[in-house]
C-alpha cells in the first residue's frame, strides 16, 4: 500500500454512488454493483464511517470523487486538504480519483458548491498549477469533471470543452465527462444539448475520458417564468440525458459510468435499477480504439 496504489481498477461498467445511509445494507448484503464511488470529504473526519468503507472496499472497486479540492481557487489548493485526500487514498487505494472544474474556497472560507470559473487563460494557468500540485502530492493522475452551470461570465473566451481539453493537455489530468451536466448547462444556456456534445467531441481527445457520470436533475422556473434546470442529483436520469449518453458512448466507447444520487436518496435497489439501464447502454455501445489511457501512478510534470 502506498502513494498512488490502486487496489482494483474501476471497470468500464456501471457503478453506484455509495452514500452513508446505504452503508449498513452494503455491509450486510454485499449487493451487486460493478464498482462504487464515494465523496472522500465524508470520510476525512468520520473514522467510524471510514472503518465501514474499508470493509466495503475489500469487495468493490472504488473511486474517490472529491468535492472540496477547489481546483479553480486563484490562491491555490489547501495543502492540508490535499494531505487528507492523500491519506485516504493511501488507505483505500481507489481505482480513480476526481474533482471538478470549479472553485469553492476564497478568503479561507469553504462554500459547499461547485462555483463556476470564467474560461480564461488566467483560469487555465491557475487550474493547471493546482491540478499539477494535487497529482504530484497524490502520485497519480486525477480526473476533472465538467460542472453544471447556471451563469456565464462575460470574460469567458474559451469554450468549456476546449478549456477542459487544454487543461488535460497541460496538466496530464484525465476527464470525468458528466453527461447530465452537459445537458443541464446546455439547457440553461438555451443551447441544443446534442450540438454542445458535438462541440465536446470535436475538442476532446476521447482517450482522456476515463469516467462518465449520469444523474437526475430538477426542472424549475425563475421569477421571470423561464425554465431552469438544477443539477440536484435527486431523481432518475431523464430520457433526454439517456439519449445524450448513448451518443457519448458512440463517440467514446464503453467507459466506467457512475449513477449519482445525492438528494432524496431512494432505496439501494432503485440505484441498482438505474445502474442496470446504464449497463445495458454500455453493453450496446460500440467498442472504439479510443480506450481511456490507464490511470497513471505518477503525474506528468506540469
Amino acid at each position, binding site marked *: 500500500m502506498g502513494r498512488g496504489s490502486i487496489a482494483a481498477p474501476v471497470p468500464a461498467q456501471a457503478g453506484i454512488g455509495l452514500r452513508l445511509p446505504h452503508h449498513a445494507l452494503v455491509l450486510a448484503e454485499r449487493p451487486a454493483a460493478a464498482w462504487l464511488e464515494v465523496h472522500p470529504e465524508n470520510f476525512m473526519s468520520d473514522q467510524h464511517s471510514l472503518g465501514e468503507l474499508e470493509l466495503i472496499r475489500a469487495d468493490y472497486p472504488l473511486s474517490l470523487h472529491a468535492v472540496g479540492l477547489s481546483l479553480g481557487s486563484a490562491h491555490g489548493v489547501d495543502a492540508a486538504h490535499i494531505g487528507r485526500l492523500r491519506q485516504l487514498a493511501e488507505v483505500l487505494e481507489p481505482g480513480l480519483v476526481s474533482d471538478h472544474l470549479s472553485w469553492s474556497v476564497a478568503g479561507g472560507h469553504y462554500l459547499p*458548491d461547485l462555483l463556476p470559473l470564467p474560461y480564461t487563460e488566467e483560469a487555465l494557468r491557475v487550474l493547471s498549477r493546482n491540478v499539477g500540485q494535487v497529482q504530484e502530492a497524490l502520485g497519480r493522475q486525477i480526473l476533472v469533471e465538467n460542472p453544471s452551470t447556471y451563469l456565464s461570465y462575460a470574460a469567458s473566451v474559451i469554450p468549456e470543452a476546449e478549456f477542459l481539453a487544454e487543461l488535460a493537455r497541460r496538466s496530464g489530468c484525465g476527464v470525468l465527462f458528466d453527461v447530465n451536466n452537459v445537458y443541464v448547462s446546455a439547457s440553461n444556456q438555451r443551447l441544443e444539448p446534442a450540438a454542445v456534445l458535438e462541440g465536446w467531441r470535436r475538442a476532446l481527445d476521447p482517450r482522456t475520458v476515463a469516467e462518465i457520470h449520469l444523474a437526475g436533475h430538477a426542472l424549475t422556473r*425563475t421569477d421571470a417564468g423561464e425554465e431552469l434546470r438544477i443539477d440536484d442529483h435527486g431523481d432518475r436520469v431523464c430520457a433526454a440525458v439517456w439519449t445524450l449518453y448513448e451518443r457519448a458512448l458512440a463517440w467514446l466507447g464503453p467507459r466506467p459510468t457512475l449513477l449519482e444520487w445525492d438528494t432524496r436518496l431512494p432505496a439501494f435497489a432503485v440505484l441498482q435499477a438505474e445502474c442496470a439501464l446504464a449497463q445495458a447502454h454500455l453493453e450496446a455501445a460500440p467498442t472504439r480504439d479510443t480506450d481511456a489511457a490507464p490511470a497513471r501512478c505518477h503525474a506528468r510534470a506540469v
Partner: protein
Amino acid sequence: MHAPSEQPLAALQAAMSAALLASDPAGQVLPAALFTGAHAGAVGLRVHRNTVLAALSHALRLSHVAVDRLVGEAFFDRMAIDYARAQPPRAPQLDEYGAGFAAFIEGFPGTGSLPYLAELARFEWQLARLARMRAAPGAGPVLQLDDGVRLRFAAPLWLHGASHPVGEMRAAILAEDAAALARLPAGGDFHYALWRSDAGVNVRPLGECSARFLAAVYAGASANEALAAIAPGSATAGGGGDPPGSAELLGREILPAGFVQVERPADGCGRP
C-alpha cells in the same frame, strides 16, 4: 484598473464569495457586466447562494437533530443561515462544521422561552463528534480492585455536564413525548457519560459522585484514588449531600451502566 468583466480571478472569487454570504440585498449583487448568457447573473447567483446555505443548514441539522425538532425547520434554518454567514466553514469536511453553533444560538432572538437551547445544542454536538469516532474496545482505562476483579472501561467515553437535563430532554424530543418533556426539572446539575461502542453512541445519566469517580478513572487514577474522590471530606467531593459508599456507587450506577466490563480472576480450573 480592470473593467468589471475583466477582473483577476482572485478578485472575482472574493467578490462572489462575499455576495453569496451577504445578508443584505445590496451586498448580494454583483455588477451585471460580469455576466452574459440566457439568464441574468443574479439568477445563477441565487442558485449558488441557495445551494451553499442549504448545504450548510443541512450539515447543522444532521448534528443537531433535537434542536431542529424543537424549534421547527423554518426557525432552525434562520439560525443556521445566520450562523453560516457569521462563521462559514473553513474546510470541506462538513461534519466538522458547527463547533460554534451552540454558542452562536445562545440568546438568539426569539429563543428567550428556551433557555436550555444552547445547552441542548452543545450536548448534541458532543454526540455527533462521538458518532464519528471508532469504538476502541480495550483502549479504555482498567481498574484493578483488591479482590482481583478488573473493571475495563469503554473508549472513547466523555463526561458531559449541563445545567439542564439535556439527555432526557433530547430523548423526549426525539420520541415526541411532550408529557415526558414537561415533567423534566427546570434546572440543576446534570451529568452524563457519553461513549462510543460498535453499536452506536450511548448516553447514561450519572449522579454527581459517579461523574467524579469516572473523571478520576479517565484521568488515570487507581481504584483507591478514584474511590477516594467520592469519599466524604475528599477535596473534590464537594457539597451536595452525603456521597454513597463506594460499593453502593459501583453496584448502583457504574457496573450496570454499559460502559464497563467486569473481568473476574480465573479459578483454579482456568474458568473466569
